[in-house]
């Protein structure tokens, strides 16, 4: 939980009274343009930045005063995770496991388990610098999971990954959340945030501008303001839909496929009823009528503004 957290770098106000509450077991997606303060927020949460204003509590413990208690329950994957060049996967994980308080035997066992879950068992003896970017990212996640954390803080975990690795990573995140781990992650790839996050926070210029589920965002912004109609037979009188009450605009996207924009005050259900009636009256046959909701990209741009898309 962050309460009115502010952080300055010289004259630059990086975070301005940021307040956030992350519930146990949820996947919280944190999005915002470059320089919005996402990494700063995460570094404060994990105790890497200790000079800030406000109150930060993780699992009831105050940061940075009770950082050793927090560090026992927290795993962190930094943006562009880096290891010393001479380390092998096995050796790096053993060191981080031991530093997290595991005995050599416990660390050995956990390394085997975590590498198996992440599909890294084959590269256990390899030098980390010889691995691909996706693999290194997974090793980064492995070190964060070794000591069985309750909270995972992942800074841009999907950045720079190819589509297959991104898909794999998202599945892993969902699986970990299924095991009861709370996940707080940032990403530039909005569709990925939409895919995995149970709740989303939007940060802009150091301020949290909105927090909610994807559905809540969609309902706040133009939810259902578009309806897509696909006809199996077009009687050629689709232009008449323009005169239906609640319709603002009409556009033919393809033969037999139309996009209807509704007025902002229009009642969605009543307008759809009227559209169906009008089409049937004019002799058209309907294949589908689908209300379209806003994508996360549209919601994001409404909060953050055009040209700011990460």
């Amino acid at each position, binding site marked *: 939980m962050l309460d009115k957290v502010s952080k300055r770098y010289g004259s630059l106000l990086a975070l301005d009274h940021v307040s956030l509450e992350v519930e146990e077991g949820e996947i919280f997606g944190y999005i915002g343009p470059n320089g919005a303060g996402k990494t700063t927020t995460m570094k404060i949460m994990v105790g890497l930045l200790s000079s800030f204003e406000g109150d930060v509590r993780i699992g009831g413990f105050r940061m940075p005063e009770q950082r050793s208690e927090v560090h*026992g329950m927290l795993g962190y994957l930094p943006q562009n995770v880096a290891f*010393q060049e001479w380390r092998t996967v096995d050796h790096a994980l053993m*060191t981080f496991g031991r530093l*997290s308080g595991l005995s050599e035997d416990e660390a050995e066992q956990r390394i085997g388990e975590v590498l198996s879950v992440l599909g890294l068992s084959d590269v256990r003896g390899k030098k980390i610098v010889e691995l691909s970017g996706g693999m290194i990212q997974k090793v980064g996640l492995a070190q964060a999971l070794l000591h069985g954390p309750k909270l995972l803080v992942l800074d841009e975990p999907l950045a720079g990954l190819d589509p297959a690795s991104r898909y794999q990573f998202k599945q892993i995140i969902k699986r970990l959340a299924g095991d009861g781990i709370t996940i707080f992650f940032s990403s530039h790839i909005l569709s990925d945030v939409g895919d995995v996050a149970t709740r989303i926070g939007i940060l802009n210029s150091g301020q949290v501008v909105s927090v909610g589920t994807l559905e809540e965002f969609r309902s706040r912004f133009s939810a259902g303001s578009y309806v897509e109609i696909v006809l199996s037979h077009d009687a050629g009188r689709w232009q008449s839909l323009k005169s239906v009450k609640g319709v603002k605009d009409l556009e033919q996207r393809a033969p037999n496929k139309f996009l209807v924009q509704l007025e902002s005050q229009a009642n969605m259900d009543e307008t759809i009823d009227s559209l169906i009636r009008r089409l049937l009256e004019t002799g058209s046959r309907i294949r589908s009528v689908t209300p379209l909701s806003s994508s996360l990209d549209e919601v994001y741009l409404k909060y953050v503004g055009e040209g700011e898309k990460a």
Partner: protein
Amino acid sequence: MSLPLLLKDELRGFYRSKVMIFLWVGLPLMAVLFQFWSASTQQVFSFTLLSAVLVSSIGGTLASVMLAVSIINEKNRHVYELFLIRPVKRWNLIAAKFFAVYICIAVASFLAIAMGIGTDYLARGGASGTVLKDTLQSVSISMSMMAVSSAAGVLIGVASPSVLVGAILVIYGGNQISAIPMIPTILNVGNASLFTMSSGILISTVLLILAALIFNKKQF
């Protein structure tokens, strides 16, 4: 708890590095090559003493550059973040690095000085008392200078923002500071070895404490 673990870790990283391989082989080799040069010149100091100065100067410079560059690189690549989110005392990280490099170059220097002593003994057939005195003086100079160099490397590594600035500071600044423990020997004061070692330990400790204070305040 974390210092022995980190030290073991760093030793594992350093002893196989290219610079260390050069030192393991290069310093003893230089000690032997130096014999040929010294044979053709008029010797003022014993060969052992000159070997020690040469070895500590080269070893100390390499160690301090290696430490500074390694710390700056790791800082800039955010390697320390993964350590600092664990219950690790920050000063343990730099202390482990210092001791790992120092142990490695100390062993390399012992090898080189041992070569010098052996050569001295064979060439001069000197009395064992002289050889022992020279040896003690040589070892104390060598160890003290390298400790100061290494500590300066750590301090510069922690404080410097870039590798270039760090390397320049180490080469020009670190080397000057590391010569301080030589002063008692140059001035030929009584019990020079003791003064040399004391000043080496004192200066190294001060530099390391400064480095730890800066590292503790760093925001990563």
